[in-house]
């Protein structure tokens, strides 16, 4: 099936999310749609899927114009979508989820579950998915849940499969399996639209790459195009992908975490006897798949969560039991992983957000009286220094883009003398330009001698910024390895495989991305 989008335009008020976008997806093609957050990729796919009405333009299937009133129409026309956030009912089985919405019935309104099971098994076997139709969704790993979504789409005879940021939640090995599945589907004649902002994956799997920037198609490229070229197209200016930094000059250890364990409200051990040190002037990256104890580690150091055991010594001072306020005052800077939940107060002005943790201290307050003039003057200065783009520091911070909001958080946390910086997912959801900025700031902080704890689920980020890497799995440390560690080895460690075994396994089998890495290194050398 050939899919064509012709002159699609979608406006929201004065904002043009899609501006005359043309796109052709040939049968059996993996077509990557590359663009930054907010470039208009998801809007375009929602138009295609019948969720939005385009203001102009049309969708053609096999050269015949079609209109979709809703996802039902799109599905009927052979378009399937796997959303970034899965649309699955956690307490239902795989088979139940797959047939949800078009359940086969037998007799009087009885769901024909055996038929649903057969359907799942059939598709699963055809592509070697290895999915148990009777498993509960909530018991499946994320990668398997994603396969259920794909089965769901295929069970409705999808000829075109839209994958919206499918690798965001996967480990490198799971990503590798997904890439295998995409190639299989392609061989079976299914077209795939692959939405992403990750250059590496695009180059590994796509046949054609279309780059979107600010709602417009700005070009297309073959997968052989160098990463820097793709990045420049995506961002609209030349970008330096590599993070430039001097080798670390670690001083004596400043943060000593020993035997730290955290049990959450549900009584589950989330952090299990964790011991490590961070030296002055080095970045220790905590790598791990989301939900393996990183949140609890940061929370325990900051005082948001009380550990059940262990100690956190910062320059010899015990932080456990100190409380958030005193920990911050002891010189800990904290960039929270969930910006909108923990980092900022959306309805507060930029100026107010900049003093959240120091609002009751001079020069911002005299006694209990705030000094609005000083608050504003200081905010104006910080905003300049951190290059935050805004109209007025009195505007609510919710009017800023994610990148600028994060710069405000950085400005707040890093503009006082620090003895420790904890950066948790500092670049999540940011555009390339802001990511560069954040990385530069973090490295600059390291260079003045601050110990930095960087918590990240992005292996790319970990490899680019870290001096040493700590891998967390199920709340335990799998290993602490140097920055030069092989991507495949790290990927296996993220899944809980100890270092030595990971090295053996990685040597036997390279993932698509890991192999691409090696080729790239060889190319560089030659």
């Amino acid at each position, binding site marked *: 099936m050939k899919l064509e989008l012709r002159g699609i335009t979608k406006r*929201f*008020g004065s*904002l043009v*999310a899609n501006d005359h976008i043309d796109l052709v997806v040939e049968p059996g093609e993996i077509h990557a749609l590359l663009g930054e957050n907010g470039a208009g990729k*998801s*809007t375009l796919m929602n138009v295609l899927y019948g969720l*939005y009405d385009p203001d102009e333009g049309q969708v053609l299937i096999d050269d015949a114009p079609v209109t979709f009133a809703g996802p039902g129409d799109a599905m009927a026309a052979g378009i399937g979508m796997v959303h*970034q956030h*899965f649309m699955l009912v*956690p307490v239902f089985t795989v088979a139940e989820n797959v047939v949800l919405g078009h359940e086969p019935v037998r007799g009087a309104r009885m769901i024909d579950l055996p038929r649903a099971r057969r359907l799942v098994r059939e598709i699963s076997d055809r592509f070697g998915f290895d999915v148990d139709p009777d498993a509960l969704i*909530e*018991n*499946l*790993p*994320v990668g*398997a849940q994603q396969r259920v979504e794909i089965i769901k789409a295929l069970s409705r005879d999808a000829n075109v499969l839209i994958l919206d940021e499918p690798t*965001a*939640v996967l480990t490198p090995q799971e990503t590798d399996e997904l890439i295998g599945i995409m190639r299989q589907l392609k061989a079976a004649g299914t077209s795939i639209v692959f939405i992403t902002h990750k250059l590496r994956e695009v180059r590994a799997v796509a046949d054609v790459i279309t780059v979107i920037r600010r709602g417009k198609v700005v070009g297309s490229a073959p997968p052989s195009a160098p990463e820097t070229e793709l990045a420049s197209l995506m961002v609209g200016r030349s970008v330096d992908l590599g993070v430039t930094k001097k080798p670390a000059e670690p001083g004596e250890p400043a943060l000593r975490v020993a035997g730290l364990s955290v049990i*959450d409200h549900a009584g*589950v051990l*989330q952090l299990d006897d964790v011991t490590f040190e961070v030296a002055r002037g080095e970045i220790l990256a905590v790598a791990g*798949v*989301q*939900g*393996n*104890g990183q*949140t*609890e580690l940061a929370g325990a150091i900051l005082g948001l969560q009380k550990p059940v055991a262990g100690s956190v010594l910062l320059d010899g001072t015990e932080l456990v039991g100190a*409380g*958030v*306020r*005193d*920990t*911050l005052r002891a010189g800990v800077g904290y960039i929270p992983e*969930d*910006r*909108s*939940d*923990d*980092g*900022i*107060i*959306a309805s*507060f002005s930029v100026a107010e957000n900049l003093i959240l*943790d120091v*609002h*009751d201290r001079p020069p911002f*307050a005299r006694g209990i*009286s*705030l000094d*609005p003039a000083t608050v504003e003057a200081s905010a104006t200065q910080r905003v300049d220094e951190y290059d935050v783009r805004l109209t007025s520091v009195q505007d*609510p911070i*919710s*009017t800023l883009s*994610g990148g600028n909001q994060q710069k405000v958080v950085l400005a707040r946390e890093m503009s006082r003398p620090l003895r420790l910086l904890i950066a948790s997912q500092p670049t*999540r*959801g940011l555009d390339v330009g802001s990511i560069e900025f954040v990385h530069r700031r973090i490295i600059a902080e390291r260079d003045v001698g601050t110990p930095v704890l960087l918590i990240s*689920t992005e292996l790319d980020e970990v490899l680019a910024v870290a001096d040493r890497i700590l891998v967390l*799995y*199920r709340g335990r440390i799998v290993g602490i390895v140097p920055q030069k560690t092989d991507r495949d080895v790290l990927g296996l460690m993220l899944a809980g495989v100890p270092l030595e075994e990971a090295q053996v396994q990685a040597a036997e089998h390279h993932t698509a991305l890991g192999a691409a890495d090696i080729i790239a290194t060889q190319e560089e050398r030659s």
Partner: protein
Amino acid sequence: MSDNAPAPAAAPVPAVPPSAEPPEPSRGETLLREMLSSSWVVTTLAIVLALVISGVLIAAADSTVQSTATYLFARPSDFFSAAWHAVTSAYVALFQGSILDTGAPTFVRAIKPLTETMTVSVPIILAGLGLGIGFRAGMFNIGAQGQIILGAVFGGYIGFAFDLPVGLHVLLAAIGAAIGGGLWAGIAGFLKARTGANEVIVTIMLNNIAVYLIGYLLTTSAFQRPGSNNPISPPIKATALYPHLLGSQFRLHAGFLVAIAATVFVWWLMDRSTIGFRFRAVGANSKAARTAGISVNTNYIWVMVIAGALAGLAGSAQVLGTEKVLSIDVAASFGFDAITVALLGRSKPLGTFLAGLLFGALRAGGFAMQARTGTPIDIVLVVQSLIVLFIAAPPLVRSVFRLSSGSSRRSTRSVKEAAA
């Protein structure tokens, strides 16, 4: 980004990833926020719309209108002129009873309604200011009624039981009232901070307890007027009374100045002090406040204590100013009117002050309306309720008046989401 889907089975708790899904704000919270963010235009139009609909009800309840309706098709003009007369005379009476009695023979009689409006509005404004602080700090305090009662009990007791010099006596009585209200509300704050008990339920129950407490106290020898069988206290001593502002022919007393001062104080507290900064931070995003080192629980207690102190002052205005005696219904329904007023005033001090005056006017004018035109005073309650109803449903008001849809802030956000 923040909601990184379910964690892998590899994680210790696959079904419930820690802090992966941001908790949806509860429906009550969303409604509260919606009400606070509605624009002045919507507020004004809601009042207009409420008056129009109430006008229809006034006409429908009028006996002349009812009789003309029986021959509506024979002589429609009778019906319409009767309806017009019923509505206009009722609203004219409402105006004359609450602001300026244009038909009064003397100047004093002419402006008396306005001073009555001001007098009645004092407890509503004071309690409304307290509730507004709570709403902005994320505390849905329904307990102003009980806090007013406790304020009146404390202030009243100091007022009739002690002999103190002029000036000092009223000051101590007022402070006592504030402490009484503050302590009563503090119970709810303390329970929420310590145990997480929902403040809505606790404050409602405290209202009930307060009503029965004052009923009991007024049967004890310490509170009951000697020689009386009625549940009523001895009269407040003259030294403890709020002085009259415009001479003794008006009931207007210095409590109105307290209300003005409290309005300015609350503005300063919420917009210019570190305490108010923390209150607002906790109310707008308690997780971010906690991450910034603000003790959310401590703030819950202080919010309630300050809100209760203001409600306590409302009680003092009743017992030391308007009623001059402590009785069972000293708080009337001011504690509940205050909720409406705080929402109508969008929890801002000036808004609450103006909304309090409006409700004072409706209450004062309602009596005149009933006396002069026979329109039931209950219609005032209908007007009040309709105003709140329309404030609570801004889209309804917007569609009635064909305003552009959606608040601008919300639409830009959805655009951003869509573009992402």
